[in-house]
């Protein structure tokens, strides 16, 4: 990855935002809410991680929203996936391990399943 450099086969950081991320099993992990980049000593800006969660999204909607979201949610739903985990970067970002191992959204899915669907879904659970 690099910042835009005029070559059509290269992507910009912007291209990554909102992309669908799936695990190696094809199960959705989520959409990229934001990205984390690092300045290297040699002056290069390098992509470090993909961010997921409502606080990251709130920050993109409006900067003042982010501290408010952080105060309310206290980082409980935020996730960071290091860029080294990315196996394939196309129109869908594919990670190296199954989706469940990254934990993004999994607690919510499990909680809804255990407290609601188990009673309502019967044979479709």
């Amino acid at each position: 990855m690099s910042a835009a450099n005029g070559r059509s086969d290269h992507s910009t950081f912007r291209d990554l935002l909102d992309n669908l991320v799936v695990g190696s099993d094809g199960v959705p992990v989520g959409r990229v809410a934001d990205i984390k980049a690092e300045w290297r000593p040699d002056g290069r800006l390098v992509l470090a991680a993909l961010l997921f969660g409502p606080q990251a999204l709130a920050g993109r909607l409006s900067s003042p929203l982010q501290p408010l979201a952080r105060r309310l949610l206290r980082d409980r739903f935020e996730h960071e996936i290091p860029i080294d985990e990315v196996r394939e970067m196309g129109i869908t970002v594919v990670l190296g391990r199954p989706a469940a191992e990254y934990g993004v959204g999994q607690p919510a899915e499990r909680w809804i399943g255990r407290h609601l669907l188990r009673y309502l879904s019967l044979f479709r659970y």
Partner: protein
Amino acid sequence: MTKWLGIALGLLTAIGGFVDVAALATAAEAGAKFQLSLVWPFLLGTLAIIVLLEMAGRYASVSKQPYSGAIRQHLGFKYYLLPLGACLIANTLMLPAELGGMAVALSLVLGVNWFVLYPVAAVFVWLCAWFGSFKTIENGPALLGLVTLAFVAGVIALGGPRPQLLTTLWHPDVAGQVPGYLFLAAAILGAIISPYLVVFYSSGAREEGWSRASLGVNRVTAVVGMAFGCVAALGILTLSAMTLGPMHVQAGTLGEVALSLARPFGAPGAYLFAAALFVTCWGASLEITLAMSYNLSQGFGWGWGVDRPHRAAARFRLTMLLFLALAFCVGLLGLDPLTLTIYASAVTALVLPISLLPFLVVMNNPKYLRDKVNGRAGNIAAVAVIVLAFLIAIVSLPLFLVTGGQA
């Protein structure tokens, strides 16, 4: 052979999204008040929705991603919230109207007040959406929806429209009723070009695992499905013009619309109407409920799919449940289904451009569509539909205020 059975997706989309309570009401009212002079919005709307569905299906087949996700991916999270919010408002008004339509259909048969049957309709839709497989949801209303052809049969049984009625096709008699005529035209277009149709269709294409090899099926499905919907709607309009117009019945209630089928078929005609109303509203209720869950789940990248175990798509299921509950509560306010339909169509018309503008961006990205991006003709068609959507949005509100929502 099996892949051509996928045309059921188009038929369901047509029965649920094209011939729903809104199209039924507007078609009957158009026929009763303006004879055949409002055939053109149906034809125009059909062309527009065919263009949109073909593109949505092509995108889903080639990129393997549905349309809702594409909006966020191409235009960002901020923009995605606009059509999502617009869909939520419009669908929260439209779903109770469809549930109300089902309840009215049941009340025509059982002779019980429709409001008492409203919860029955809601529970039935929940059960179908909750426990049904995608195939069942797709094929059930599609097959039973053939009953809407009863309106066409009624036109034939009465010997077809008389020559003086046919002249209203090109000589509309709208003296003193121009705002009402234009409002109804906009309402018809708003009822046909519904964004939830696009969301449901593209998601259905993914549910069925369409690929590049399905592009032919996609084209035929969009054309055949919507043409079927158009024929059924024009059957309603023509029969209404032949039967209700001469009796000066305004088709202001669903009960009055039922009279149109009673004329050619007698008492069984009323049951046929009840069956057609029930099936079309059932199909639309399922489509709207699923479309809302698809939209949110795809936009946020959650697991989704009717055939997945519920625990594997828990947030998709929860969205479905909460949305149905919300829409059900709106219906409990006791507004007449037709009044709700008018409000929902007006909201849909107002926000139509927001939902359709992304087509121009999405369908021209070779990274996603490779050699299947829009050609010049495709882009001209897309621009024409979006211009039409803007026109509908611009004229809808003033016409709604002038006419008070009455044609």
